[in-house]
């Protein structure tokens, strides 16, 4: 696919002050680094720590819901757990993991020496730990942390929220600034730093999906920042954006929030599509089926995602024509999504498939994400959403698309590129154990939630009626098992960093792309001279 002029890094360490042979040593390396690989590593570790933090909160939730009645925690603390679990997973685990992957992979995939704006890159990572330190510390304040759900609907977040709400608002501001800076960096890198010959329709799909994601981020993160700002001024400075008594409207909160919120859910899945589109061909030893339709499908999903927000609000009393409009637009999104699923299946069709861990996660992604898509379609039917809304059915839906969707794709990516990052092969046996433990437990955890929801169990409530007891027990057991399984992942990664079978430049024989043309581990500086892409 391409020929490379890769010279030894030592050949040009006099180019610029911060070009060195390898990485500088010590803690300052990580604090001051502007190297895309270092920053990618920081993002990925940060994301993993947040994943475990949010996971610990989920364990509290499932422990409380193991039995009906209130046994372990106060209802208000339960609410803080569901709220902060959601915020940490969305903004701390999934989004930074994708940014980490973007940092590691995009420059290597397009043949660029680094991200376009390395200093901004450093800032956009390093403000994140502060954002989450603020958010998590609010849990220990008098009155507790945010307890109004990750969707922070007014008036829960305005009239009835704890005193610590300002901290929540500021932490979301910082997360937003970090994401926007990250997105700007991605766009500038992709637009201006492609190697000669890397034309638009030759871009790897991970790069394409991230480019589109970056535009979504730039479009909606500022709206989120505006929303939390309005909450702040309503709560502390006497404005009435969302307060009916002062002429505002609480339903408007939901419109503004979901105008951000629905594109946000696609921000959390488009990069996954790119990852799966890289892994499935590699392990099927075939070219990706329908490359250009993948690009167009991604773009149409992104555009449509601005026209469906009110499917989260079917029960707020919208006029019938609005209910219909949002119902049809929502169902329309299933079409480009379906195109993708069919393309992946067609890529596997008659391929000579091998089932290493990345491929296992990718196949599980395709099947389980599709289940989430189907439950999404059920929710999109306005009249039935009146029954399903705010029940565990919705919880089942978004965990299928986010855990077995986004998170599984991140796991798949980690296994796929770990040899490139560390220079060592991960332990395949442990990886497979991690896969099977995760996949079985995640279904025990989330599949029964569909039935709980259909039977009427409301979400975000610490207690429930007796008839839900057995199923909740099964769900909780699945939850603990899934939580524990992730420690296997930690073990695999640590073992792989420490050593293992040496990885060749291209450990997966079906893999394609510039990142496989440089040695493993990828040298600290790669593509200092751009490769020629034919």
């Amino acid at each position, binding site marked *: 696919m391409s020929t490379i002029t890769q010279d030894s890094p030592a050949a040009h360490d006099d180019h610029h002050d911060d070009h060195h042979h390898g990485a500088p040593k010590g803690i300052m390396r990580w604090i001051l680094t502007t190297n895309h690989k270092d920053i990618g590593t920081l993002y990925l570790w940060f994301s993993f720590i947040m994943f475990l933090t949010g996971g610990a909160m989920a364990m509290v939730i499932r422990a409380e819901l193991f039995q009906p009645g209130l046994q372990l925690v106060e209802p208000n603390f339960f609410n803080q757990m569901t709220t902060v679990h959601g915020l940490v997973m969305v903004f701390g685990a999934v989004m930074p993991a994708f940014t980490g992957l973007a940092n590691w992979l995009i420059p290597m995939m397009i043949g660029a020496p680094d991200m376009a704006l390395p200093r901004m890159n450093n800032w956009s990572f390093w403000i994140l730990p502060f954002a989450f330190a603020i958010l998590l510390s609010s849990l220990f304040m008098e009155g507790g942390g945010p307890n109004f759900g990750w969707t922070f609907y007014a008036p829960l977040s305005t009239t009835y929220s704890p005193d610590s709400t300002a901290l929540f608002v500021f932490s979301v501001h910082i997360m937003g600034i970090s994401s926007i800076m990250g997105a700007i960096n991605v766009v500038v890198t992709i637009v201006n730093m492609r190697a000669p010959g890397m034309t638009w329709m030759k871009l790897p799909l991970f790069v394409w999906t991230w480019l589109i994601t970056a535009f979504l981020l730039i479009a909606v993160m500022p709206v989120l920042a505006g929303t939390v700002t309005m909450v702040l001024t309503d709560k502390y400075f006497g404005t009435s*954006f969302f307060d009916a008594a002062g002429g505002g409207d609480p339903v408007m909160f939901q419109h503004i929030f979901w105008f951000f919120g629905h594109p946000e859910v696609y921000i959390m899945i488009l990069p996954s599509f790119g990852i799966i589109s890289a892994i499935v061909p590699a392990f099927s030893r075939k070219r990706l089926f329908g490359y250009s339709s993948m690009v167009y499908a991604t773009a149409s999903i992104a555009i449509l995602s601005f026209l469906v927000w009110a499917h989260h609000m079917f029960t707020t009393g919208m006029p019938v024509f609005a209910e219909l409009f949002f119902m049809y637009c929502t169902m329309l999104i299933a079409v480009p999504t379906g195109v993708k699923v069919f393309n992946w299946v067609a890529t596997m069709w008659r391929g000579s498939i091998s089932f290493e861990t990345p491929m296992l996660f990718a196949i599980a992604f395709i099947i389980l994400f599709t289940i989430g898509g189907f439950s999404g379609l059920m929710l999109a039917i306005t009249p039935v959403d009146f029954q399903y809304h705010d029940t565990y059915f919705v919880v089942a839906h978004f965990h299928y698309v986010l855990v077995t969707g986004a998170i599984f794709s991140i796991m798949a990516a980690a296994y796929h590129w770990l040899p490139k990052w560390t220079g060592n092969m991960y332990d395949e046996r442990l990886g497979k154990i991690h896969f099977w433990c995760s996949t079985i437990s995640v279904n025990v955890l989330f599949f029964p939630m569909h039935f709980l929801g259909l039977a009427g169990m409301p979400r975000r409530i610490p207690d429930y009626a007796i008839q839900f007891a057995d199923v909740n027990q099964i769900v909780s057991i699945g939850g603990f098992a899934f939580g524990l399984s992730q420690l296997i992942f930690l073990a695999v990664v640590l073992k792989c960093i420490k050593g293992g079978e040496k990885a060749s430049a291209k450990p997966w024989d079906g893999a394609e792309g510039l990142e496989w043309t440089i040695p493993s581990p990828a040298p600290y500086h790669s593509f200092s001279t751009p490769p020629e892409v034919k």
Partner: protein
Amino acid sequence: MGAHQADSNRKLIGWLVAGAIGMFGFGFALVPLYDVLCEQLGINGKTQSTAAVYKPLTVDTSRTVTVEFMSHIQTDMPWQFVPEVKRMEVHPGELVRTNFNAKNLSLAQTLGQAIPSVSPGQGAAYFHKTECFCFNQQLLEANADAQLPLIFYVDPDLPESISTLTLSYTLYNITDRGYVGAIEQGAAK
């Protein structure tokens, strides 16, 4: 990095930052946009917040519309607040007067603000109030009571599909919010 590339980076960053700032502004622009859209399309059940002028109309006696009245009290509002009549039949175009009765049950002077909403939402544009206590804040001394008048008419253009209009008031305690005439000023936005 060549000077050329630095230059095109700067340009692109400029566009992207401008886009982000623009979208921050757009978030706030959604607030008036929402009100305008709701009003124009008449979809939110919001009625007008100033008095309508009654132009003598031909009363359509061939048609009757059921008008229902409801009242809600916010939890921290120490008043009793009920419609005098729960349900009435009116002819479109007919000017009707009814009252809501309020009583301050607390031992302190309290300031209240009633917020109206019409259901079905599409009917709101056809419900005209020429006088309403909701246009002003209501002040009641401890234990005082008051009869709060509402004068309205239903637009003869009310679509045939709507035969019942429900007018609901929620009463808020705004004693310690201290701003006067918030509604008239279009809220403290």
